[in-house]
């Protein structure tokens, strides 16, 4: 018997050049951008991929060369993910996100957003009521770092000075950057915690609200309610909305895990994750704006009415962007 003339050997010699060609194309495509390939090469890729698939089927049915089959499996799998994988251009992806994906995702979360907003507002009212009636609560609601001299023992003049403090002028942009990275990290955490059955997310949202209410009460008790409002909401309109949406995204995931409805739990969770993920990516973008408004805007704009109008304009713009009906885009 002459071992050289195996059918599987002939099959391999006949097809090998195509496999090698596919392998070389894939290597180049994966290393850089797909743009490195010429048009004719891009057209060839799916053909070579299908040829490799058919080779794989034939090899599995007729050949007993284990290394050949393993090679074809790995080659066909790589080609499959390239041919059917994501290949939209980054720019396309980004414009699609801003024009369509982000507002749609936020709109899709309206129920959760409502719940999140209710929790937030309720916590704010509770925080306010507690501190208005008994200033001692302030210490337990706002422990440590966040206070920075804003506590009930401070004089009204000192409290007021904080609102119009502009001597930070030196490091404004790095301050804004710090605020953004810190807030983004916290909101991502709030979102991720949604997986633990919503509860930690609700607590984080409520904690935000409590703090806001407490601070507001402290200033309101000194007759500085309007002024502190401007100080808070110039960036807060954006930041708090982002927090509420992050909470909503977390709720969506947690809810899908607890109550998957008539779908399998895994499917329900991943469907929820896709919507919530897009909304969360948007939250990070919102926090960039909030960071700039807080770090730079608040330190340079000190007139109360100007701060309030920035707050209102930003709120209206965000809500219009998310919720105004718009034509369907493909």
């Amino acid at each position, binding site marked *: 018997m002459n071992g050289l003339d*195996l059918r599987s*050997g002939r099959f391999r010699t006949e097809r090998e050049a195509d496999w090698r060609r596919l392998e070389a194309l894939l290597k180049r495509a994966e290393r850089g951008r797909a743009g490195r390939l010429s048009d004719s090469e891009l057209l060839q890729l799916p053909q070579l991929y299908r040829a490799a698939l058919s080779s794989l089927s034939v090899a599995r049915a007729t050949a007993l060369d284990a290394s050949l089959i*393993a090679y074809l499996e790995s080659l066909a799998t790589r080609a499959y993910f390239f041919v059917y994988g994501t290949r939209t251009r980054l720019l396309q992806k980004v414009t699609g*996100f801003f024009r369509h994906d982000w507002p749609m995702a936020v709109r899709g979360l309206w129920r959760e957003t409502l719940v999140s907003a209710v929790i937030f507002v309720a916590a704010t009212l509770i925080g306010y009521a507690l501190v208005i009636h008994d200033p001692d609560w302030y210490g337990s609601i706002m422990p440590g770092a966040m206070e920075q001299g804003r506590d009930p023992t401070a004089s009204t003049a000192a409290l007021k000075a904080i609102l119009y403090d502009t001597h930070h002028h030196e490091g404004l942009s790095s301050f804004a950057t710090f605020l953004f990275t810190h807030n983004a990290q916290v909101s991502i955490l709030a979102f*991720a915690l949604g997986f633990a059955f919503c509860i930690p997310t609700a607590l984080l949202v409520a904690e935000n609200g409590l703090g806001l209410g407490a601070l507001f009460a402290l200033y309101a008790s000194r007759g500085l309610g309007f002024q502190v409002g401007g100080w808070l909401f110039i960036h807060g309109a954006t930041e708090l909305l982002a927090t509420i949406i992050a909470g909503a995204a977390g709720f969506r995931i947690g809810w899908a895990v607890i109550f998957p409805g008539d779908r399998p739990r895994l499917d329900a969770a991943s469907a929820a994750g896709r919507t919530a993920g897009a909304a969360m990516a948007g939250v990070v973008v919102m926090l960039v704006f909030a960071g700039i408004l807080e770090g730079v805007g608040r330190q340079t704009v000190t007139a109360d009415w100007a701060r309030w109008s920035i707050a209102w304009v930003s709120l209206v713009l965000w809500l219009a962007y998310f919720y105004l009906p718009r034509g369907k885009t493909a």
Partner: protein
Amino acid sequence: MTVSHPQASPASKSLVRALVTPEGVDLRLTLASAGERAAALLLDLVIIVVALIVLTILAVAAAATMKAKSQEVVQMIWLLGAFVLRSGYFLLFELTSRAATPGKRALGLRVVARDGGRLTAEAVFTRNALREIEVFLPPIFLMASSVAGDPIDGLIVLMAVIWSGAFMLFPLFNRDRLRMGDIVAGTWVVKSPRFALAPDLAGAANRSVFTPAFTFTPEQVNAYGVKELEILEDVLRRRDPRTLKAVASRIQGKIGWAPAPGETDVAFLTAYYGALRGRLEHRLLFGHRRRDKFDKA
């Protein structure tokens, strides 16, 4: 990326999942094991930490040479750099066409949508946002436990460590080795090895071996099945002299082969491999796959 040779014994069957392409071929994906996932993560964390240290050294060095005004720019770059490293590293690498971080690439892994469809940017974002509680939360709680003063605080922190540790160990408690990020994003991590096409053992390269000196009787060729053939292939590809000798004498004993003077183990085994494969493939064409030597049919 390392190019490895396929093993004779594939990973445990329990991790193989069907992925049927639109063309109707099952690609038989193998899920990454928990150990591989952990190793890839560790590698990525080391890269992140090293990059962070380098970034910090560069920032400090740059700031030292600058006036206070421009130091602020350095500070901003450092803050953003640290943020991108922590939150963007996984995201950006998994958005590329390789769908894998350097750690995953080194272990031959990639991220894949569970339904076999496109891996969307939202999915990648979500699976990595969840990393915040799986990877970063437990160490934070652990660090908190070392500073917690009184026993009550310590107890609370201990509970938190256990709670967050459960997130971290989540992949060990399900069949598909999904971490929570995978569940929510609808993804999983599979092996995506790159095998080089090894030379055909029965091909032209070994032409000199296939001579009439090695002619086997039908009984001799019928001694083994597919499983033994694959082991023989592996032995021949590894070329470890001691194993070759042991296997050669084993087979010679079984089929009653008397080695001619000057005949090498490699030559005998290669020739027998060719004959056995020819016989088994011939039977395969007629619809019978002889699993191993005990398969009598």
